[in-house]
C-alpha cells in the first residue's frame, strides 16, 4: 500500500465530483431524462422562437413556414393517387399510390439528398461526442473527403465504374480519418483542446481547397479559368441515381451509404469492445484509465472514426450530385456545421441522428432560395439565415436542457436527472 495508485479508504466516501466532468458525461445524464419528449420540445421551441424572429422583421411566420413545408416535399406523402412506377434497376412497372415524378417528389428527393449528407456529418459529431470530444471539425473533414473524392473521381477516366467509385469513396473516408486524426493525436498526446484544433483545421482545409481549385491552382479546371472550379467527376465515377432525373439532382445511392453508416455507428457503439471503451472514456476518462482502458488510444480512434463519417459525407456529395467543387462552394458550405445541431438534437444516438438529419435536411431544403415563394421574403436569401437562426436556437435550447425539462414538467422538479449539486 506504500506505492502504486491511491486506493480509497473504506471509510472515506469517494468525492462525488472527482475527475473531469466531461461534456459527454453531463449530456449522458440528460439522455436518461426526458425521453423523446425533450428533443421534440427543443425543436418545436426553436421553430416557435424562429417564427417570432420572422414576425419581428415584419413577415408573416405562418406563410414563411408554409413555404418551407412546401419546399421540403413532405406533401408528397399525403398526395395519394394511382400511379405506375418502374422498379429500380429493371424494366418492370407496378402500381404505386404516390406520384414518382411530381414537383413534390423532386423536392423530396432534394430533401433526402441533403439528409444523407447530414446523417454522415451528424454521425461525425456524435461519435466523437460519445468519447467526450466535441468535434467542430466536421466541416474541414468533409472538405478533405470532398477534395480527395473530386480528385480521384475526375481522374482515371475509363476505369471500371464499381472499382472507381469504391476507390474514391474509401480514399475520401481515409483522408477524413487522417485529417480528424490530427486533432485526435494532439488531444491524446499533449491535451490540446479539440474545439480549437478542429476549428483551425477547418480553416486550413478551406484555404487548402481555395489553393487547389482556385485561380492557377494545381487542380483547377483549365477550361473554366475565370470562375475557378475543379475538374468535373467523370461519368463512370458518378453514384447511380435510383429515383428521379440524374441530370436534375435525383436521389443517388449515397442514401444507402448513409443508412449503412447509421447501422455501423449503432453496432460499433453498442455491440463492440471499441464502442464500450469509447463510451467509458466519454463518461469519465479517469475512471476508464483506472479500469485499464487507454484513454489516448480511444481519443485518437474516436476522432479518426468521426473523420471517416465526415469524409464519406464529402465523397457522396461530390460523386452523387455536385460533381465538382468551386471556389464559392468552398467559401459558403456549412453542411459540416449543421452536423453539430443534428448530433445534439439526435442525442448522439443512431436513430436520433437519422431523424434529426431528416428535420434539418427538410429545413435546409425548404429554406433554399428556389423553394420560397417570392412574396414571402423581399429577398429570398433571408430564408437561409432563418434556417441558420433556427439551428442556433436548437443548439441553445439543447444546451439549456434544464429550461426545456422545466418547461416540460412545469413544476421545476428535476425529472430523475442526476444533475445534482456539487456537494
Amino acid at each position, binding site marked *: 500500500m506504500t506505492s502504486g495508485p491511491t486506493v480509497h479508504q473504506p471509510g472515506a466516501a469517494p468525492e462525488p465530483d472527482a475527475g473531469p*466532468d466531461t*461534456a459527454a458525461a*453531463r*449530456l449522458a445524464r440528460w439522455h436518461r431524462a426526458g425521453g423523446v419528449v425533450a428533443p421534440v420540445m427543443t425543436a418545436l421551441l426553436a421553430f416557435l422562437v424562429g417564427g417570432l*424572429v420572422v414576425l419581428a*422583421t415584419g413577415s408573416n411566420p405562418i406563410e414563411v413556414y408554409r413555404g418551407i413545408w412546401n419546399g421540403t416535399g413532405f406533401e408528397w406523402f399525403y398526395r395519394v393517387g394511382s400511379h405506375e412506377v418502374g422498379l429500380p434497376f429493371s424494366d418492370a412497372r407496378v402500381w404505386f399510390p404516390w406520384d414518382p415524378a411530381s414537383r413534390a417528389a423532386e423536392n423530396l428527393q432534394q430533401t433526402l439528398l441533403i439528409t444523407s449528407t447530414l446523417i454522415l456529418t451528424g454521425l461525425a459529431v456524435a461519435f466523437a461526442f460519445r468519447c467526450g470530444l*466535441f468535434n*467542430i471539425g466536421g466541416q474541414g473533414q468533409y472538405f478533405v473527403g470532398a477534395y480527395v473524392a473530386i480528385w480521384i473521381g475526375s481522374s482515371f477516366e475509363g476505369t471500371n465504374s464499381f472499382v472507381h467509385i469504391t476507390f474514391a469513396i474509401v480514399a475520401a473516408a481515409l483522408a477524413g480519418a487522417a485529417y480528424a486524426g490530427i486533432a485526435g493525436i*494532439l488531444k491524446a498526446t*499533449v*491535451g*490540446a*483542446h479539440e*474545439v*480549437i*484544433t478542429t*476549428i*483551425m*483545421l*477547418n*480553416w*486550413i482545409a*478551406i*484555404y*487548402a481547397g*481555395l*489553393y487547389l481549385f*482556385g*485561380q*492557377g*491552382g*494545381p487542380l*483547377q479546371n483549365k477550361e473554366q479559368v475565370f470562375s475557378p472550379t475543379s475538374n468535373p467527376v467523370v461519368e463512370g465515377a458518378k453514384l447511380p441515381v435510383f429515383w428521379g432525373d440524374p441530370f436534375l439532382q435525383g436521389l443517388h445511392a449515397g442514401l444507402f451509404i448513409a443508412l449503412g453508416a447509421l447501422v455501423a455507428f449503432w453496432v460499433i457503439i453498442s455491440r463492440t469492445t471499441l464502442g464500450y471503451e469509447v463510451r467509458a472514456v466519454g463518461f469519465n476518462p479517469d475512471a476508464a484509465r483506472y479500469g485499464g482502458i487507454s484513454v489516448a488510444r480511444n481519443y485518437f480512434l474516436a476522432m479518426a472514426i468521426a473523420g471517416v463519417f465526415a469524409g464519406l459525407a464529402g465523397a457522396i456529395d461530390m460523386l452523387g450530385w455536385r460533381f465538382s467543387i468551386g471556389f464559392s462552394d468552398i467559401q459558403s458550405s456549412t453542411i459540416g*456545421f449543421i452536423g*453539430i*445541431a443534428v448530433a*445534439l438534437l439526435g442525442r448522439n444516438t443512431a436513430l436520433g441522428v437519422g431523424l434529426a438529419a431528416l428535420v434539418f435536411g427538410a429545413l435546409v431544403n425548404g429554406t433554399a432560395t428556389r423553394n420560397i415563394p417570392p412574396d414571402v421574403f423581399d*429577398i429570398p*436569401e*433571408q430564408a*437561409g*439565415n*432563418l434556417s*441558420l*437562426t*433556427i*439551428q*442556433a*436556437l436548437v*443548439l*441553445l435550447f*439543447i*444546451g*439549456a436542457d*434544464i*429550461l426545456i425539462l422545466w418547461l416540460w414538467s412545469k413544476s421545476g422538479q428535476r425529472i430523475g436527472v442526476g*444533475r445534482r*449539486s*456539487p*456537494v
Partner: protein
Amino acid sequence: MSVGAATIEREGLSRLVSARAFGWLGVTLGVLAFWLVLPPVTARSPVVPLVMGGLGVLAGAWALREGAGRRLGGGAIAIAAIGILLGLLATRSSVEALDSVFVWSALIAATLRAATPLTFAALGGIFSERSGVVNIGLEGMLLMGAFFGFLGADKLGTWWAGALCGIVAGGSLALVHAFVSIHLRADQIVSGTAVNFLALGITGYFFIEVYTDQGTPGDVDFTPTVSIPWIEDLGFVGPAIGNMNLLIWVAILFVVLAHVVLFHTSVGLRLRSVGEHPKAADTVGISVYAVRYAAVVVSGALAGLGGVYLSNGITHSFNENLSAGRGFIALAAVIFGRWRPFGAFAACLLFGFTEALALRLPSAYGEDQAWTTLFRALPYVVTLIVVAGVVGRSIPPAAVGRPYTKQ
C-alpha cells in the same frame, strides 16, 4: 547530509538553467534562420538558414535531453524547423519581391492592425475564463460587434455611436451565453457554439435585410486615425506607428488596464477567486453569479469592440462571417498567453504578424500566384502549433468550464 542535499539541488538547478538557456538559444537560432535571409541583411545562400536552423534544432534537442521541458525544447525544434523552411523559401524568391513584402515599418503597422481585433477578443476571453466561464462564443460576439458597429456608424452618422452599438451587441450576445451557462448551467462549450451560430444567423439576416445584395456603402464615418505630430515624420517609427487607428491605441491601453484591474485591484482578486474556487469565494460573501455575469458581459463588450474595429477600422465594409475564426484564434492567444493580458497581447502580435505577412504576399508576387492563397492559412497553422505546444503546460483557472450551483 543536508549539505549534500543542497549541493545536489544546486547542481540540478544550474543544469536546468543551462538547459533552459540552450532552449532559448534554439529559439533564437530558429528565428535568425529566417531573419538573416530577409531585408535588410538579405543573405542569398541557402546555407545560411540551413546552418542556423540546424544549430537551432540541435540546441533544442540538447535542451530537451537536459530536461528543459517539452514546451521549450520541442518549441525550439519546431521554430528552428519552420525557420529553415521559410528561410529556404525566401532564398529562392527574388530580392525585389522580398523587398516589397518585408518593408518592416509597414509590416509592423499591418501586424498591429491585424492583432487589434484579436487583442480585444483575447482580453474578453481572459476576463471570462478568469471568472470560470469558457467563452467559445467570442467569435460570435466579434461578429455581432462588426455588423452592428458598422450599422450604427452608418445609420447614426458617427463612428463612436457605431462603436457603442457594437459594444452593446457583443454584450447582449454575451448575456445570452451568460444566462444559459451560469443560470441554466448548460455545457459552456455547447452554449458558446450555439451563440456563434446565433450571431451568424442574426448578422446574416439583418445584413441582407438592411443592405440587400448591394453590399455595404463606403461613405460611412470610419474610426479615425491618430496622427502624432513629430513621430509621424520620423524615418522608421513614423510609418510604423505614427498614423495608427485610434482603436489600436485603445487596445494597447486596455491591455495595461486589464493587467492592473486583474492583478492589482480587489475587483480583479474577486474575479480570479471566483474562477479558482467559487465555493470559497461564495463563503466569504462574493456573489459568484454576479461576478460571472459581469465578467462574461464585459468579455462580450470587449469582443464587440474588436469587431467594430474589424469592420469599421480595417475592412471598411461588412460581409457575412467577417470574423473568419478570429474569435478562436483569440482564444488560443488566451491559452498561449497563460490567461495574462500581456502574454495574450504578445500572442496576438504573433498571429497578427502571420496574417499581415499573408496579406502582403499577393501584391508582391502577383495576384495570379496560387500559392499565396496557401499562406492565408498561416495564422491558423501557427495557432494549431502553438496550441499543441503549450497546452498542458499552461494551467487554466481551476474552476473554468464548471457550472456553479448556489447552496
